[in-house]
């Protein structure tokens, strides 16, 4: 069976806008709030045109205060609204940390489900675009380890829209991370109207039997390039785009490493405390006997993201990934 759907060629940031638009049309209670999201359409134009289409009561420029944005969103969410709160950059979510950690993520548990906080927090993140200090932080692990939060990261326009729709439909708080490096890097056919890419499901981007590569967001491009080089050297990579970072897709992760017996994990966040460790522990718990080599990680370092003159050194490169692939296969 084939179904015909109308599609448009969109960049990731346009797909994000489209996801919000579709959901705002369908649900009156979906509102967007944040710094500069109104007339300006967001500093990356992710909310471009929304205020014109939906008005100032649904697309709201807030004062410059992240705790205020998240804290009032909590009040809005548990009183009938579905706020999509934008953090201008993930590096500016820290002032809101208390509200997310002690309230957004806990209210359902605290009240045994009586009050809930169905909201989406959107935030551009990651290095590689020569942004100023603090703008390039990759701190997804602060939230994957926070009970009560879901964390997702699309790596392409199609997933971005479909996962944003799912995030908005989710009854619980979802942190929706948007890799800045992917915002305009490619265009892709994106269906018009509503469709879902489910949360909690990874995607296998390439089938291979020698080694599994785990990555997400902006690192997908890097690992795909590395996988190609590896292929040329005769190493076949199973490449998995994790997409949802909490909860991880346990089945696909375990199934893949049980097939390959080898894994390379790539992320730009610092090694210590990064998501790589969570994946390693999952592999330990599910696939110990299958592993033929220690897992390799290619990650950012245990240092702050340096200013951009050095950021290419900080970021995992295809070269480093290839070396890691070789290391695990030659073990």
């Amino acid at each position: 069976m084939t179904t015909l759907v109308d599609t448009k060629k969109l960049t990731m940031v346009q797909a994000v806008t489209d996801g919000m638009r579709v959901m705002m049309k369908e649900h009156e209670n979906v509102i967007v709030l944040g710094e500069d999201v109104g007339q300006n359409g967001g500093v990356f134009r992710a909310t471009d045109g929304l205020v014109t289409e939906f008005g100032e009561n649904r697309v709201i420029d807030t004062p410059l205060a992240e705790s205020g944005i998240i804290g009032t969103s909590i009040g809005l969410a548990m009183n009938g609204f579905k706020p999509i709160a934008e953090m201008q950059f993930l590096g500016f979510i820290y002032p809101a940390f208390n509200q997310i950690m002690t309230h957004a993520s806990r209210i359902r548990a605290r009240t045994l489900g009586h009050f809930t906080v169905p909201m989406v927090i959107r935030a551009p993140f990651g290095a590689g675009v020569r942004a100023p200090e603090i703008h390039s932080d990759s701190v997804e692990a602060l939230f994957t380890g926070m009970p009560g939060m879901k964390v997702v990261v699309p790596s392409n326009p199609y997933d971005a829209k479909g996962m944003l729709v799912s995030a908005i439909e989710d009854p619980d708080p979802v942190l929706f991370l948007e890799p800045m490096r992917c915002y305009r890097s490619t265009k892709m056919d994106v269906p018009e109207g509503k469709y879902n890419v489910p949360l909690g499901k990874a995607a296998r981007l390439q089938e291979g039997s020698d080694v599994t590569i785990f990555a997400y967001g902006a690192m997908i491009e890097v690992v795909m390039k590395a996988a190609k080089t590896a292929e040329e050297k005769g190493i076949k990579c199973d490449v998995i785009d994790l997409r949802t970072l909490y909860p991880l897709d346990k089945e696909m992760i375990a199934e893949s490493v049980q097939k390959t017996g080898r894994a390379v994990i790539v992320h730009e966040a610092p090694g210590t405390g990064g998501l790589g460790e969570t994946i390693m522990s999952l592999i330990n718990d599910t696939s110990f006997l299958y592993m033929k080599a220690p897992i390799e990680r290619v990650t950012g370092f245990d240092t702050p993201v340096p200013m951009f003159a050095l950021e290419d050194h900080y970021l995992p490169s295809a070269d480093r990934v290839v070396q890691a692939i070789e290391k695990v296969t030659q073990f």
Partner: protein
Amino acid sequence: MEKLFPKMQIINENGEWKDETYRGEITEELTKELYTKMLRSRLFDRKGVNLQRQGRIGTYVPFEGQEASQIGSAMAMGEGDWMFPTYRDHAATMTFGHSLKTLFLYWKGRQEGCIPPEGKNIFPPAVPIASQLLHATGAAWAEKLKGTDRASIVYFGDGATSEGDFHEGLNFASVFNAPVVFFNQNNGFAISVPIEKQMKSKTIAQKAVAYEMEGVRLDGNDVFAVYFHTRTAVERARKGEGPTLIEAVTWRYGAHTTADDPSKYRNQEESVNRRETTDPILRLERFMKNENMWDEKWAADLQESLTLEIEAAVKEMEEIQAPHYNDMFDHVFAENPWPIESQKEAYAHSRGDR
């Protein structure tokens, strides 16, 4: 500033009229209702302290002395409005409809203590200081967006005014003209820290100036002043005239919590004196006597029936079944994701439960 924001009273410490604006409304019925509610909460509070001493509940947070502030303000709220209390505001929440049993359960470490009765919009107590001001603003803003005339009231202490969330809450409310009443109970202390170390400003009400907001300072031990001025603020909120910051000047007689020893940081004689002079319940009793509303028999009967009510609540609290550990697992998300589900299974297994 103290001149710009005078501490308003309707009756003074001796129960005498200071402001007769609301005289027509201050009926015997209303007065007795307020007295009843204050006595009820005081007896509840003393019970709470005792239960903690006996090890029947955990740490308890007493509010004795602050009854007029909490009850006068809660009485000003209507059905469908929202209330955002702290850990010290049981007098407010029980006035607004919380059950005594639930309040005790909270201090017994039971998650059920966070759940209000159906239809009552009472949020669980905010533990991180001042964080709730933003929730109240958000909930009120939601009502405004929905086009209702419902409002929020949020409680917080003098210490809470130092947190960034206090500032952000008031600013958001003023910018979005959210129908919220910021009800500050200035009891002079944040645990051991006296207000002089908390801020240089002589009043809390003056902080409203920063937000071009209405600021009101009142005698928080005068239940009439609290009730009528809060009602005015709520009415303004309902009419779309914006939020109000109310500073109710009061005092807690006892410890910050049952784990606190106030003699470490203040002379408790002050509390002893205040019980004789500025006590909110005694003041109302004096007023009732002055106005010929007092009836010893009525007061004695009341004391008895309230005591029975509280004892019944204690019994209910103590008879409730032990919680099941699944409560801890099953409400983090609408549906358990696999890590929680597998932890839950492993835990059951470790106990030999399956």
